[in-house]
């Protein structure tokens, strides 16, 4: 079974600085998707960024980028020029694409609570 591990329960960053959130996962599958979701205090989870395992190029969305290391099964999220609005819980998630896999269901880590200091 696939697992997702986020080893940082809490992180803090100064406004305008850069922070990296860690995520590792375990799977025997060769193709899958990885996601970072953000859950602000209002509690609605929003997709921040996604990565397709067969793509070597790291995904980027504005100030958010990932460092995807497939061999190491690592998928970290870098937030550049941090803003107060980035304060939230961040969840790393895995999704299988293979037949017999989790069939589209997301497997989450425990989350990392990010605080942004003004």
């Amino acid at each position, binding site marked *: 079974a696939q697992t997702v591990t986020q080893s940082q329960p809490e992180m803090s960053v100064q406004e305008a600085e850069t922070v990296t959130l860690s995520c590792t996962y375990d799977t025997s599958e060769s193709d899958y998707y990885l996601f970072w979701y953000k859950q602000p205090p209002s*509690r609605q989870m929003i997709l921040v960024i996604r990565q397709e395992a067969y793509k070597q190029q790291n995904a980027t969305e504005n100030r958010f980028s990932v460092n995807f290391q497939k061999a190491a099964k690592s998928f970290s999220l870098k937030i550049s020029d941090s803003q107060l609005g980035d304060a939230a819980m961040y969840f790393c998630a895995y999704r299988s694409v293979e037949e017999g896999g989790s069939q589209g269901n*997301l497997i989450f880590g425990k989350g990392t609570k990010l605080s942004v200091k003004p």
Partner: protein
Amino acid sequence: EAGVTQFPSHSVIEKGQTVTLRCDPISGHDNLYWYRRVMGKEIKFLLHFVKESKQDESGMPNNRFLAERTGGTYSTLKVQPAELEDSGVYFCASSPRRWDTEAFFGQGTRLTVV
């Protein structure tokens, strides 16, 4: 376009009572998922509907949980009777097609069983 909405946002019930959570997915989304996050733990998959049919209910913890999706529109998740360990945040998500890479989440229902 309205997003995924969940009702209620917060529910406090006594052990042994019944609670029904509701999820209205985005209109036209065939896929509806229920997840749960117990405090301090991972968000766990509960079940997946495709239209009105249960595609996968392998994550349902026990037979005290009953999910339905009437006519392939909104879904309800009933807990009867509720136990203390059922406390947590229940999330609903929807997507248009099974293999869509983005699922849209609701705000969640925080259930507290006392």
